[in-house]
């Protein structure tokens, strides 16, 4: 699904990622954990194609193609989805308009006809129910005036409708109360599939109580310093990030 090899990335001539290696197979859930400033967000941004980063070395291959060569919208149409830490508010465009525009962009990319209006509405309403959202949300402007929890739920709603292959969740748990966290997690869990992979970028272990990862990687100072199974997250929670940061220093 995704193969990151020795990836190095600069921001304003400062090296942020210092040689990342990561293999993600279809159906797997990987959690990327790490303290502030470790490069977690840079990694999710670079995968989704945000401007402002310079790749100085290494490669990212997605489904056999060079991901770094693709414009952000091409990545998205090819099935890469970034759930934002801070979803943008867009007054003047309704949620349902954006969903329709996005879905039809994907269909056009794959030489499919526009989605039928009735089918689309049925699909969207199904997913809205799944995420325990009010249908009125569809007709409100994108994220405008939404609470933190509503914004994150909206990201998952978009994900559920666009059916991506690689979902990157950037600090999805930040700003969520426990009820919202449950709903969002259930939404994500319902999207787990044999051909769909997840990368969860998170600071805290909390989210992993609800979405169980297959692998946990700890990022520190721009490198993956430790990898393991789900139990690694618990160990981290107990011992703190200094544990892995120190162990790296000891090597």
């Amino acid at each position: 699904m995704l193969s990151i090899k020795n990836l190095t990335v600069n921001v304003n001539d400062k090296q942020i990622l210092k040689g990342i290696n990561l293999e993600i197979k279809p159906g797997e859930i990987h959690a990327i954990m790490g303290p502030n400033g470790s490069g977690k967000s840079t990694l999710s941004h670079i995968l989704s194609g945000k401007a402002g980063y310079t790749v100085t070395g290494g490669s990212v291959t997605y489904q056999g193609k060079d991901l770094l060569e693709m414009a952000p919208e091409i990545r998205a149409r090819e099935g890469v989805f970034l759930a934002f830490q801070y979803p943008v508010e867009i007054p003047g465009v309704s949620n349902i308009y954006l969903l329709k525009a996005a879905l039809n962009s994907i269909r056009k990319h794959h030489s499919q006809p526009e989605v039928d209006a009735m089918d689309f509405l049925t699909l969207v309403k199904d997913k809205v129910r799944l995420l325990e959202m009010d249908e009125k949300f569809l007709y409100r402007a994108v994220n405008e005036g939404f609470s933190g929890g509503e914004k994150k739920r909206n990201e998952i709603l978009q994900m559920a409708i666009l059916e991506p292959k690689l979902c990157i969740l950037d600090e999805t748990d930040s700003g969520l109360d426990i009820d919202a966290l449950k709903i969002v997690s259930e939404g994500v869990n319902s999207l787990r599939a044999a051909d769909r992979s997840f990368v969860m970028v998170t600071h805290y272990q909390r989210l992993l109580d609800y979405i169980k990862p297959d692998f946990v990687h700890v990022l520190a100072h721009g490198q993956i310093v430790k990898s393991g199974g789900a139990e690694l997250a618990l160990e981290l929670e107990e011992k703190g990030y200094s544990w892995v940061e120190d162990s790296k220093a000891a090597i």
Partner: protein
Amino acid sequence: MTTAIASRYTAEYPTIAPTLPGQNLVWLTALRQEALSKFSALGFPSLREEEWRYTNVSAIEKKLFAPSVIGKVQETVSKELLSKYQLADAWSVVLIDGHFCAELSALEGLPETVTIMSMADALAQQPDNLERYINQAVNNDEHSFVAFNTAWFTDGLFVHVPTKLILEKPVQVLHLSTQNDALATTRTVIVAEDMADIKVIETFVGMDAAYLSATVTEVFVGCNADVTLYKMQCESDKAYHFGGIYVKQAKDARFTHHNFAFGGLLARSDIHTDLDTASECELNGLYLGINRQHIDNHTRINHLKPHGISRELYKGVLDDRARGVFQGRVIVAEDAQKTDSQMNNRNLLLSNDAEADTKPQLEIYADDVKCAHGVTVGQLDEKSIFYLQSRCIDEETARNMLTFAFANEMVDKIKIKSLHDQALEQVLIRFPQEGVNKEWL
């Protein structure tokens, strides 16, 4: 002592005066004379005046627009413009080249207690009533467009809604200009008595001609009454437009204004409102400038008494060599404690040659108030573009969508469906639509 005559228009006045309504009214004649002498001394506003420093109206003086004569106008009316702009779900009044046109107006079913009549008729039938309102929300000293309108107005409209009456349908006042070099000067008075509720739409359209429309609307909102006023300015792209709206709000009165400035070569709007205790006003504006359009919006919110609330949002999208001006003043009088006021002006520039001049002014004389203002002039937000790209939308489409969205935020505030669709159409024809799918909106 001799007074220098500053305007060629003054020389024309003696021939025009006998055709104006309300000839027999002493108070009106005095008012018009006062206005004439003020206008004669000053001429149209000049760039030297602080509130006109961004807007040069000297072309109006060079052109010498003249009032049209009643009766001559009907056959030239464009049916197409009427059918495009006259709203089916409203009581509608049509003013052509500054004169009320009964045949084209539609007032069937209007509640008997509500008055909607031409200004000429109102001056003839209930002059005492009009004396209580004309030049009471604004006076001839405001600036010389107001004085000009007072001296020159040929007709207009009088709307009166009695106490507690809620008018179910909106009232549309359709100003239609049909002739080159014509002058349309109308005065409209809107009165909502205590606890009344009315929505009025002022639509300005014109045939492909250079004309001047110079209108003044005075609005009186009674205690706990609610007035919503929409202005759809879709003048011809050769036209000059001045439209002043002056409002007096009584205690607990609510006034909402939606100002859509789409047309005109040179267009200026004044919206001034005086707030009494606990009254609320909301001023929304959208101005779209293309080619060489110059669009000026001037607002003044005058908090005179405590506990008033005002909200103001003006947005401009300027392309080509267009210029947009926003001057917003909020005045909080010493007595107006606990005033809560927010003013915002946001401008989107789509070309290097477009210009936005923005000047928010807060004048606060009370010490316990909550006032904020903000101004932005800039391009589209890169974060929003990336967000849309990450949702499969290409960059160009994203830019078009965001430009549209920027304007559409104001269109979406329109609660009258047919008017909403008209405004939407105006936005869509002015900016690139590639990627903005009308059917999905």
